[in-house]
């Protein structure tokens, strides 16, 4: 599995879909037979996974790069994000 770095361009895996929950307004990450309720910062991060680099995502969010990379690595390990 490739390491996630500031230059990685993370994208949502094709099996994963983001949507807004109609009852709570929270963002859900859905994938085969599973789903995660995302907190607002995770939701904002994943909505920026549109081809830009992890470094740009961290800058856009004003978040520490290390935190962004750690989150992306966790989702990548679960096959939900490709880097």
């Amino acid at each position, binding site marked *: 599995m490739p390491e996630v770095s500031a230059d990685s361009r993370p994208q949502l895996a094709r099996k994963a879909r983001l949507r807004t929950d109609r*009852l709570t307004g929270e963002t859900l990450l859905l994938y*085969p037979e599973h789903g995660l309720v995302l907190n607002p910062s995770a939701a904002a991060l994943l909505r920026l996974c549109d081809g830009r680099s992890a470094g740009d995502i961290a800058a856009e969010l004003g978040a520490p790069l290390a935190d962004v990379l750690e989150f992306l690595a966790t989702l990548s390990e679960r096959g939900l994000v490709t880097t």
Partner: protein
Amino acid sequence: MSPQPRPRPYVLVAELTYRCPLRCAYCSNPTELQDRPALAGADWQRVLGEASELGVVQVHFTGGEPLLRDDLEALVARAAQLELYSNLITSGMPLTRDRLAALQAAGLCALQLSFQAARPGASAQIAGVDAFDHKLQVAGWVRELGLPLTVNVVLHRENLDEVDQIIALAERLGADRLELANTQYLGWAYQNRAALMPSLAQLDAARAVVAAARARLRGRMELLFVLPDYHGDRPRTCMNGWGERYIVVTPDGRALPCHAAHILPLVFPDLRAQSLASAWHDSEAFQKFRGTDHLREPCKSCDQREVDHGGCRCQAFLLTGDASAADPVCGLSPQHDLVVAARAAADAAAPALTLRRLRVVR
């Protein structure tokens, strides 16, 4: 007991038909079917809309074999319109590449394909039909079209020793996910229990193979091993709790908290006559075993009660005749000897398998 927030269903299990070209001896479908007409397409469309309003975000189109309904594309399209994540749970029979492409175009999100074994002969033996090569072809189309693929294999005595070959098959097919589900002894599987149940040694060996493969495949293929509860000493948290996360709709339009619950002496809501919301929130059947207030001893005072809710109601009923009893799979159940005896009987004998067939009761 602290008040719980009102539960909502996240997953709709849409059992579109009980018909199936395969006759798997481990099937959990009912062994006897009531003579009731199938729910019409328009009703299914309505049920999908009501499910979305209730909070459902995933739908499993399953059966029987859901491909046998020729309005499946329209139902998938409706799910897509509602932003429901749609999973097609299928044997791959009968399926053409064109139909799969049409389902994808309608908005299908993912496909779960069953395999019975890593080899054609063993496959036909348990399924009654020689479907292996066709399934390989279907898996190829799924990959070509770029749909996420889960391979599902139900495990039992005859295929547990080949778990390494099954994992290799799923890798070769390019599966995103492999679900290795030990048989749950409900429906036809209950009738075939003594012939299907593996030994503890088989299970331990398979568990070790799966653990090693999971570490090796991390990030490439998710590997799920559904534990066999007859060999554990604590029961499963069935369906994540009765009426907590899942709502099942049967081919004839009944709402159930679990796909096996039709065996219980309860009246399940008829969705021709009432809405999914009233079935979920108000029906007696859905409230009957919801939460932990219904529990009796030894479950009532057990420190695991919020975890397992006393286990599987259907299993308790099948084994003891009392749906309110502790699941006998639990070592703390006063009727745990029933499970010990079932294990011993399976170790002692290997009766022939009874393949499933459609049997309608009038």
